[in-house]
């Protein structure tokens, strides 16, 4: 019989999808107030598709769902951008390099990278929503020829809250993609847009009849963002959102993440707007 040590270290830790494997933080970086990015080098690599998430355990505290925010091509390192909003996420943001955490995943249906081939891609991110979209941005920009026009539209609270500031600058400097950033309120040093991200949608250059949109951010922002894209002429089947709900298992057993008929953990978290439109605007579904 395999020793317990072997079981704990093997990539498929156990036949039980609820049992995590143990990994260590390799690097830690503070990104913005209360937001930390953890990088985890993984022996044997880690494969995921943009838009998927993992369940991360802070031993002794609990487990929480966190989107994968790294480059899918870089299989040796797993990247998670985490905001401190509670005991578990807070404990994860306080982990230092070398410290251990539990990992289960990857889970979920990700962004429609294959469907986007040959089409204009509009990425609409709000706040921390840029993190689950970053792997998709990496993929699109790395395989730039596969896609039409690319517009990256990002809205957040204030200039100090801009996530991945340096990368946004790098992407903006490319001639083959448009990057527009807007904030809810700006200061004297801010020369960019001030206003809602939906306004950026109205001004973006894409063919609404054939484009594909990937939207992620607070649910209110996604609702209005999807409405703006639809008003600009995009069909609801071409607008993709990443939903979030309470998750205790990520494998469709605990029931917590249900949203109408779907389990956000296994039917999502990425959904087309036409699939969810009828319940998105309903209260308390």
């Amino acid at each position, binding site marked *: 019989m395999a020793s*317990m040590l072997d079981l704990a270290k093997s990539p498929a*830790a156990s036949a039980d999808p609820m*049992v995590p494997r143990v990994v260590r933080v390799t690097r830690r970086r503070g990104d913005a107030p209360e937001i930390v990015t953890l990088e985890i080098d993984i022996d044997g690599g880690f494969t995921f598709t943009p838009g998927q998430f993992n369940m991360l355990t802070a031993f*002794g505290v609990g487990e929480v769902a966190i989107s994968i925010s790294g480059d899918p091509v870089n299989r040796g390192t797993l990247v998670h951008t985490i905001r401190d909003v509670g005991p578990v996420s807070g404990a994860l943001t306080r982990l230092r390099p070398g410290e251990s955490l*539990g990992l289960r995943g990857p889970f979920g249906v990700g962004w429609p990278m294959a469907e986007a081939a040959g089409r204009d891609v509009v990425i609409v991110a709000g706040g921390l929503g840029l993190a689950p979209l970053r792997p998709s941005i990496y993929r699109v920009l790395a395989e730039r020829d596969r896609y039409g026009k690319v517009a990256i539209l990002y809205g957040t609270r204030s200039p100090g809250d801009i996530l991945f500031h340096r990368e946004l600058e790098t992407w903006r400097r490319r001639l083959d993609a448009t990057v527009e950033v807007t904030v809810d309120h700006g200061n004297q040093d801010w020369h960019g847009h001030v206003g809602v991200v939906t306004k950026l949608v109205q001004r973006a250059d894409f063919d609404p009849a054939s484009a594909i949109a990937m939207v992620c951010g607070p649910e209110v922002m996604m609702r209005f963002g999807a409405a703006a894209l639809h008003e600009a002429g995009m069909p609801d089947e071409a607008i993709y959102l990443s939903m979030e709900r309470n998750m205790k*298992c990520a494998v469709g057993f605990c029931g*917590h993440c249900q949203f109408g008929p779907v389990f956000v953990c*296994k039917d999502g978290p990425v959904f087309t707007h036409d699939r969810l439109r009828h319940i998105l605007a309903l209260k*308390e579904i």
Partner: protein
Amino acid sequence: MSDSAQAPQSAYIDVNGLQQLLDALRRRGFRTVGPRLRDQAIVYDDIESIEDLPRGWTDDQEAGRYRLLRRDDEALFGYAVGPHSWKKFLHPPVQKLWKSERKDDEVRVIPEPIADERLAFIGMRACELRAIAIQDKVLTEGVNKDPHYAARRKGAFFVAVNCGKAGGTCFCVSMNAGPKAESGFDLSLTELIDKRGHGFLIEAGSDDGREVLSELPNRAASESEREAAEAVVAKTASSMGREMKSDDLHDLLLRNLEHPRWDAVAERCLTCSNCTMVCPTCFCTSVEETSDLTGDETSRSRRWDSCFTIDYSYLHGGSVRSSTKSRYRQWITHKLATWIDQFGSSGCVGCGRCIAWCPVGIDITEEVRAIRDSETK
């Protein structure tokens, strides 16, 4: 009626034969559990002898009411279902998942071993067999499988009983889930008790069942015994305590998500979550992390949870479903409507437990009827 290779052979055993069935199962190493009387209810627990069964008892169930009454005979299974369902054994209220140990900066995770126990359920009702099939779908037939449930389920031996009495809140007929156990059992019993005697029509539903049956003193059932058994089932089927038209529930409920009836039922519902605890198909769980003072040893367990609790849908500082109305609506629309989208069948088997065990007597069949009737008016 001619015997075909498919049709189960009906045999007859007497009451002593039932005791021998228990003994045969125990000899094989099964833990035998079945109905017994405790705390003024008929619950499922360990049984060794037929004397442990609630001989001569029946139940009187209505919305918000459950009482035990003496029968005027000595029937061993003369009642409907109580507050327990077999999920307390297959999908236990608390299940440890793993533990972690930290030593010298190295953390190891040790999965909880799969339980080695083989369970034999004595006296399962048709609705309960259906409920288990429904939970099988959720926990073992998707992309992911729950290994603890799967192991308990695989090793289990099912002895069904065809109900001799419909409960006051039963509506298995409406849900096509009873009262006759059609499949999914190893052995099936129909209790025959009259002036001629007291025994059971017994049928095998599997090879394991046939093997065990062959060890019991039995004889072929007579024509009149087979007819008597059919009559028992027919009488039960025609005396259901409730009915619920169920072929249109998906669309009916999902097009009425803002119906004022939800507000009305919310005035009564206490969100006590009794209904989810007694429901044989409810499967929701939550996880709990425990730790010693140093954090060197931690463990995680899974425990039953209910969509009625306020933090079930907690997200970003608040709950998605904070009102009672939204939580009641979630439970009933999941059970009767979106379950079909998710798993291909209704989540309800018509056992009526939620009606009996609701402290304020909310009746799922009445709520559905009110919404349907409001459309035709």
